């Protein structure tokens, strides 16, 4: 507690002061009856910039974009009832991808809770399974503990979302405050077991065909450079989960890119042959492993994770190490022998040559891979790349040369269509000097299209690349491959004029279909300041390949 002069403040003023002390400078939300006292207090803040979302889910994903880009907890706000329920998807998304978020919701006054009051919903009950922890605040005094606690929890250990539900009478309650709590920051994780780290080092030294399997935890813990150093020292071919892309540059000689359902053949085949799998901050998600019993069938497993409940959850590890991966890698790498594994690296090179990721149309900017390559050619590694969810997401994951941790913002675990635009706007708000590109589809973009208005208002430096195939592409693809080509409810009969939509919201818009020199037009659009839509038509029959059928073994890939 730091002392100060005694002030009489409302709960709402205390919340705002605590957020300021926490270092929050941008937050997003939508006001409503039950959170108006906080908004009134926020109006008096000279430190916090409030971004008015057009839908609470947008506010949730703005905060996610800020948190994913910076690694720091970000804040979103909503009123009670529908405001809170609209936040739910963004909170659940943050839970599955371990993103530090603090959601603050207004609630009806305590005396009216449980009476089916206007805009009353059980926000606490609704958010129990989708938060790391949640609070229903009972008094203004409690706020002094709860707010820093919420930030501490969001940032500590495995990061995640925390919700604070504050009844209106608590926001209005006036109390004397003479001391302020320290801001909530991540508490250090206990040091990992040295004996297990030594065992892991011995296993790596003895292995003949090891593979390093990097997950989102590597990015969260800021351990990307350490992971690359380990791979280089011990000659470890490395695969990345969707969440880890950027942890190792995908064009690094040891990189095998993304594993799993839409990984390259060489990647999944190398995993099939490995005799040791070193999982670092990864959770053996089913999209990564395919049929678990057939995943790395010959391999012993070392599993390093900050969350003890991830160890042995899906695959039993031969050595499980609980700890912050940065701390563990700092201890592990010095114990690992510098080895050139010539036979194994030769074999992996052979797999890469014989079974590379095939990217048809890479030189034509009006095909999926060609468009992604053309965008990448216009930008450097300082650009941030966001996606929505669907075919475009997987094409970008496969083909974009991601080289920087936190360069890549995508909804991995929950797979939320509608994530991309608001997450990109959030990233642009957090790091205004960067160009933020959001690849999206015609299905996803309409799920949070209202945030075009917010982006225009904030002049966010966001470029939306809309790959329009007039369908729900991954559904169309699965119906084609696995449901006897019975295409149902995946083709759009009506299609908005996206150029007019964007222009109507105050965006610049480019239709690449009409451009006489698409590459030049693309470069000009990507380098102009402020929000720009780039629209490209894509053939609806284009597929993301290779593909592992849901539930099948990763070595049984279709196509590619």
């Amino acid at each position: 507690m730091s002392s100060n002069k005694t002030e009489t403040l409302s709960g709402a003023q205390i919340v705002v002061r605590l957020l300021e002390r926490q270092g929050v400078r941008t937050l997003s939300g939508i006001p409503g009856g039950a959170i108006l006292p906080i908004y009134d207090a926020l109006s008096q803040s000279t430190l916090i910039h409030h971004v008015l979302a057009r839908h609470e889910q947008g506010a949730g994903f703005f905060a996610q974009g800020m948190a994913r880009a910076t690694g720091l907890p970000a804040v979103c706000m909503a009123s009670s009832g529908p405001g809170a329920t609209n936040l739910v998807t963004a909170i659940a998304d943050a839970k599955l991808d371990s993103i530090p978020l603090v959601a603050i919701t207004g609630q009806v006054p305590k005396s009216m809770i449980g009476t089916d009051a206007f805009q009353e919903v059980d926000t606490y009950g609704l958010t129990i399974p989708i938060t790391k922890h949640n609070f229903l605040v009972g008094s203004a005094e409690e706020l002094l503990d709860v707010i820093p606690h919420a930030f501490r929890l969001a940032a500590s250990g495995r990061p995640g979302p925390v919700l604070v539900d504050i009844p209106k009478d608590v926001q209005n309650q006036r109390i004397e405050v003479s001391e302020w709590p320290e801001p909530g920051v991540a508490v250090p994780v206990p040091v990992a077991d040295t004996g297990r780290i030594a065992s892991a080092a011995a296993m790596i030294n003895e292995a003949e065909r090891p593979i390093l399997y990097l997950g989102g935890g590597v990015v969260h813990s800021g351990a990307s450079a350490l992971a690359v150093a380990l791979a280089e020292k011990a000659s470890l071919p490395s695969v990345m989960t969707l969440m880890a892309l950027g942890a190792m540059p995908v064009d690094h000689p040891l990189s095998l890119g993304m594993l799993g359902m839409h990984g390259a053949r060489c990647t999944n085949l190398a995993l099939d042959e490995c005799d040791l799998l070193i999982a670092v901050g990864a959770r053996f998600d089913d999209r990564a492993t395919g049929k678990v019993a057939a995943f790395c069938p010959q391999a012993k497993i070392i599993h390093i994770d900050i969350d003890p409940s991830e160890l042995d959850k899906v695959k039993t590890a031969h050595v499980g190490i609980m700890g912050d991966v940065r701390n563990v890698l700092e201890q592990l790498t010095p114990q690992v022998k510098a080895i050139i594994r010539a036979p194994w690296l030769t074999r992996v090179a052979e797999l890469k040559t014989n079974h590379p990721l095939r990217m048809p149309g890479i030189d034509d900017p009006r095909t999926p891979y060609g468009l992604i390559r053309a965008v990448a050619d216009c930008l450097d590694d300082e650009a941030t790349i966001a996606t929505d969810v669907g075919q475009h997401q997987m094409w970008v994951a496969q083909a974009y040369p991601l080289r920087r941790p936190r360069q890549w913002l995508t909804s991995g675990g929950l797979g939320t269509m509608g994530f991309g635009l608001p997450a990109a706007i959030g990233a642009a708000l957090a790091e205004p000097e960067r160009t933020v590109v959001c690849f999206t589809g015609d299905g996803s973009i309409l799920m949070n299209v209202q945030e075009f208005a917010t982006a225009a208002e904030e002049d966010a430096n966001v470029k939306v690349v809309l790959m329009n195939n007039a369908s729900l592409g991954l559904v169309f693809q699965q119906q084609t491959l696995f449901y006897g080509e019975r295409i149902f409810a995946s083709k759009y009969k009506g299609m908005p004029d996206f150029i007019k939509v964007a222009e109507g919201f105050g965006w610049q818009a480019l239709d690449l279909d009409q451009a006489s020199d698409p590459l030049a037009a693309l470069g000009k659009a990507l380098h102009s300041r402020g929000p720009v839509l780039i629209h490209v038509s894509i053939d609806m029959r284009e597929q993301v390949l290779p593909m592992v059928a849901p539930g099948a073994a990763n070595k049984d890939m279709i196509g590619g």
Partner: protein
Amino acid sequence: MNANTKTENQALSRTVLELDVNNHAGVMSHVVGLFSRRAYNVEGILVMPVGNGETSRIWLMVNEEARLEQMVKQVEKLEDVLAVRRHGATHEVFERMEEYFR
């Protein structure tokens, strides 16, 4: 089924979990929610405040399943759960309650 067989059966198939938790509204919901979302039935629940009432003790009787290890780890992660201890099915806390369930 005679009494012996029943006891033996329970000894094989049941576990009693003892949880020290913070005592406020919602804690029970956090705990049982972890079980219900996994369709893992809780066979018995007892809870009473301890000491001055700042904390409570929750006793759970659950079926022994392969998922139990994961369940315990999940329960241990809850912010309001201070400690988790595991006991065999024959722990007397539920046996002594049986007279209220005749």
